[in-house]
């Protein structure tokens, strides 16, 4: 029930009603972005952002830097293990 799917905002479809078009795994969906906009992040600035979609809402932005760091850490762990056998 708490499932969320990552998607990328490709267009703002209705600024007033805070709606955007999000590409979710190749499918375009209209999604409400009220949860992820504030003064620092106006709707227009959200294009290109990766978000987590739940019941028709973008619930949070996905932090690309943190994701890359986690993957890097695990990659290094795997490489060390491979070398040390």
């Amino acid at each position, binding site marked *: 029930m708490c499932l969320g799917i990552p998607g990328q905002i490709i267009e703002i479809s209705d600024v007033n009603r805070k709606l955007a078009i999000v590409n979710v795994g190749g499918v375009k969906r209209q999604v409400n972005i009220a*949860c992820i906009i*504030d003064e620092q992040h106006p709707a227009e600035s959200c294009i290109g952002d990766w978000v987590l979609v739940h019941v*028709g809402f973008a619930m949070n932005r996905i932090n690309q830097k943190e994701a890359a760091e986690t993957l890097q850490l695990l990659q290094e762990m795997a490489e060390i293990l491979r070398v040390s056998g």
Partner: protein
Amino acid sequence: MKYVDEFRDQYRGEALLREIEKISHILGKRIKIMEVCGGHTHSIFKYGIEEIIPNTIELIHGPGCPVCVMPKGRIDDAISISQNSNVIFATFGDAMRVPGSKTNLLQASAQGADIRMVYSPLDCLQIAKENPKKEVVFFCIGFETTAPSTAFTILQAAAEKVLNFSMFCNHVLVIPALQALLNNPDLQLDGFIGPGHVSMVIGTDPYQFISQEYQKPIVVSGFEPIDILQSIWMLLRQLLENRCEVENQYNRVVEEAGNKVAMTAMNKVFQVREDFEWRGLGDIPYSGFKIRPEYAQFDAEVKFTIPNSKIADHKACQCGEILKGVLKPWECKVFGTACTPEAPIGTCMVSSEGACAAYYKYGRFSKLANQILSENQKAIV
């Protein structure tokens, strides 16, 4: 798919597994870890994580499936609202098959009630606009993950003056449920895998009491197999190093302070109920949301006469013990016989996130079950 496939990568997964094996060998004892969230239970079964981790690590499935904890009485109340001839009743697909005392919403719909499944609560506003002579009622369930979306829907209904719309609010809160679990002396746990998507809303700070007052480590986790393995590894490391902290594996989505915009909307529309009944767990104080008086015109509990049914669970049903992590599904006498996903007696068999349904669907007992069964057999012989 980005942010999905990388977290299902075998190379990284194998490395994590080897680290997990190493640490559990050093620890040299049984470790019990509870995953709180039903989404994690589902992933654990889908990817067979129980099968690959060492025998000494036992995963205990917690109460974090909002469908599983809906008491029969609330389902009966929902059905009673849906029977009003001018009502269009809407809800998420997950809620349709939850058994009430006599029927479920799917059966009520077959018997003539206008009950619709929606993907998003916002869909209800559209239905309400298209049917101005009808009252549209949304049966909202879910944890803090879902509550901001229903709060924004009420705010939008208020802004657009969609007055023929209301909600039957059944949101439940994770922290009071965890508190109730931790106060149960029967429960023996070494740590928690914390709910990822609840935490993206509330943040990781609210879990501090678990590490500070109850001395249990907790790692907030994502839902892909690598996420779950990494979280298990992080928990084992805490145990190994004698640390007891709130850690965040899912930092690509979860921030320590949560999502302020979402929480503000949630707190604007909802207030905490004095108590709320959870199926199998009974009344838990301050564990649910109701709609604030300022938004009473969108509150189905104000608009309609609701029976407020209180109905005891089926005698054979052990969902409470399952949700508390005290029993395993196969230890329930009716598991897989009288209780199946097609004809569920308890809610843990209804949702794909319920522990009983997960065990049933994936057609195998866990390693631990097999072990117990084979030991018992030996005893009989």
